[in-house]
């Protein structure tokens, strides 16, 4: 098949992935603001979308990590991967993202993306294709530590905020924290653009380098930055109400002061990491900081059962997406027919998840309702988990 056609296919699927990423991650930035009533849902997603787009232009360090940090390169600086394998990896990532979105789990779009790519590279070119040291140093270790860093800082910040304002009981503090939370949520959106939009840019840049359209070890070009920024912003605007409810209401019943502390900690963690080129999972960082903010006020109000489900999704995401990406690579690399079969099956599975999700939609109208979740048995167990 013509290289140009496959490259075009990769770019389209990458932008779709970027869209689902924005769709998935609106929750991270705006969930607590919507849950506390600081922002109306529609305004929240609009601000978030615009700032995601701005953030995409601010810093492209993370894109460079993705395009030249996780795969081994030959003497000319070309990574050991083919365009078809990148495509297969993307299919794995998109399917995993849609699946966890349907389940309402804030799993990491980042890990889904890297898992898919790594799986495809291993199946396609063997274990030598993956730069294991690079993956550990730049992805796995920062990914493991960042939620704890953000969580610990959020805990301290929340504790101080409550101490200084007498448990947020001083006059004007409710309104004051709501305003502050709006600003901090906006910062998280900006940080999100500097980190998550970059990952898709990195993948498209990697594709262009492998296909020979761009010289090795260069950063993303302007049209790539623009397209990725727009895709993630559109996805963000379209909204991820389903996940917003898990983060905002189910982990802990969050107040404005906690939301402010959590978001400030998360934004600081992500912004500094973006500058250093660490592609963090913004999902994990935000979830970590929300848990920290919950602990900072009172330990008992955390719904540990929900935290456990999210933690399992974190652990499983990278390997699971790697398996899907690997299988897709195996099919797509065999022949043109195999590639077409992967395209059709991937599209069918994606459509299936969307149809399943429509049966119990979570929209801006019921985003703050506690009930009618994705699983009724889980609701039944929840009062026992929240030891209050």
């Amino acid at each position, binding site marked *: 098949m013509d290289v140009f056609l496959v490259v075009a296919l990769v770019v389209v699927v990458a932008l779709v992935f970027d869209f689902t990423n924005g769709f998935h991650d609106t929750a991270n930035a705006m969930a607590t603001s919507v849950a506390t009533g600081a922002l109306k849902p529609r305004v929240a997603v609009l601000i978030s979308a615009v700032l995601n787009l701005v953030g995409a232009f*601010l810093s492209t360090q993370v894109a460079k990590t993705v395009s030249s940090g996780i795969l081994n390169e030959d003497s000319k600086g070309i990574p050991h991967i083919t365009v078809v394998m990148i495509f297969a990896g993307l299919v794995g990532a998109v399917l995993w993202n849609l699946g966890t979105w349907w389940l309402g789990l804030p799993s990491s779009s980042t890990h889904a993306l890297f898992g898919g790519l790594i799986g495809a590279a291993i199946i396609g070119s063997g274990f030598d294709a993956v730069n294991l040291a690079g993956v550990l140093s730049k992805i796995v270790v920062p990914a493991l530590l960042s939620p704890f860093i953000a969580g610990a800082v959020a805990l301290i910040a929340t504790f101080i905020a409550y101490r200084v304002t007498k448990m947020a009981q001083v006059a004007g503090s409710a309104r004051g924290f709501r305003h502050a939370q709006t600003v901090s949520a906006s910062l998280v959106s900006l940080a999100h653009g500097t980190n998550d939009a970059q990952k898709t840019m990195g993948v498209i840049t990697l594709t262009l380098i492998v296909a020979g359209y761009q010289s090795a070890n260069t950063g993303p070009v302007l049209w790539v930055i623009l397209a990725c920024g727009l895709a993630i912003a559109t996805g963000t605007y379209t909204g991820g109400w389903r996940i917003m409810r898990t983060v905002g209401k189910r982990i802990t019943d969050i107040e404005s002061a906690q939301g402010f502390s959590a978001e400030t900690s998360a934004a600081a963690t992500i*912004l500094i990491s973006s500058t250093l080129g660490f592609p963090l999972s913004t999902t994990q960082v935000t979830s970590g900081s929300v848990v920290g903010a919950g602990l900072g006020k009172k330990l008992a109000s955390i719904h540990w059962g929900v935290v456990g489900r999210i933690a399992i999704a974190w652990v499983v995401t990278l390997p699971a997406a790697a398996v899907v990406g690997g299988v897709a690579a195996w099919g797509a690399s065999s022949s043109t027919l195999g590639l077409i079969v992967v395209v059709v099956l991937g599209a069918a599975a994606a459509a299936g998840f969307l149809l399943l999700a429509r049966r119990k939609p979570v929209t801006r109208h019921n985003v703050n309702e506690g009930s009618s979740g994705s699983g009724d048995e889980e609701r039944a167990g929840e009062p026992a988990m929240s030891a209050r």
Partner: protein
Amino acid sequence: MIDHMAAAAAGGSGGFLDVDWNSIALVCVVTLVAAVAVVTLYSLGMRLLSIGSPGEGADGHTTAHGRPVIASVGGYACIAVGILAVLYGIYLVIPLFHMA
């Protein structure tokens, strides 16, 4: 508890991996200083501005009569410094401003 878990994760995989621990330490320190400073400044500002307000009512619409001038000045100063700290932080992370 979270600190212990983070330390265990760090200690468990250290030594034999080619991990840039300095950068990760930098992430920890910058996050801690920036977030705690911003939250503390803003909270202090609100605490100072609440001095002299009648009642314990947590929701807005309180008038500022009876608040000492020094509390007003200090309160607004805290909030202003907090906002400036955020803007400075954003300025620092944009490479475009540091090309020269």
